[in-house]
């Protein structure tokens, strides 16, 4: 499937089904990240159960230095 990931159109490998799979694919599953799918903000427990679909808009954010 093709998704819009942090503003970029990305073709995902077939084995990626859930948000957890996506985070593991990018090797960021151990990091402090927050995921939003089509405007819905997920808590960590929902990563496993949230399935991705073609054309999903996915935002992955984290904390950076700021004042």
């Amino acid at each position: 499937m093709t998704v819009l990931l942090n503003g970029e159109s990305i073709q995902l490998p077939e084995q990626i089904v859930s948000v957890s799979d996506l985070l593991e694919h990018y090797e960021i599953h151990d990091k402090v990240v927050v995921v939003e799918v089509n405007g819905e903000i997920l808590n960590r427990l929902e990563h496993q159960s949230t399935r991705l679909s073609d054309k999903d808009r996915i935002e992955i954010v984290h904390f950076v230095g700021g004042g």
Partner: protein
Amino acid sequence: MLKIGPLSFNSRLLLGTGKYPSYETQKEAVEVSQAEILTFAVRRMNIFEPSQPNFLEQLDTNKYTLLPNTAGAKTAAEAVRIAKLAKASGLCDMIKVEVIGCDKTLLPDPIETLKATEELVKEGFIVLPYTSDDVVLARKLQEAGCHAVMPGASPIGSGQGIINPVNLSFIIEQAVVPVIVDAGVGSPADAALAMELGADGVLLNTAVSAAKDPVKMAKAMSLAIEAGRLGYEAGRIEKKRYATASSPKEGMSIG
């Protein structure tokens, strides 16, 4: 003790985590500052380069309270979204509402700031809005249920210090929640003055991170804030036009 909502802190310094020359310097500065509340921003992750260092990952999050900001928001709706993203990390319930209304001065949009504060209080956040030094707005933010008000001393990152101490003292006098002077502090003298005016705390970033020696400046700010607070509690003397001798006039052995 600085009390914000249900939380208590020994340190009255809130430290920003942006723009340090290196993570090592930052780590040391944070430690030396004795700050217990650290601010962060929420941004898109560069997922294609996940190995990039991240300060938060090197931090013992049990030791510090995270205060994410909504920097980047220009409307209440954007601020609320960023706040919810931050909370979904499971690491924090506090949010610094920062809704900028002017790119050049980085002064806050008062109307959107109030709207975002109202919404986030309803959502159960501990809400600390960054605001201009306007006593009427500060009162309205309090009425909206915010847990601290954070008036700017001068524009963000400008280092101009407290350009309107009278306005700040108006806010402090009527405050029913802690007043944290946020933005514009340039030197330890500025931070001490804020505390002497009766502020409950100071939030600063650039004054430390962009100092020639950030670690030393972190220490200086920590001491200045403590000194200013003690001075405020001790109560300063009235200013007089003419001198008053400190030594007694009686019992002089000459003349």
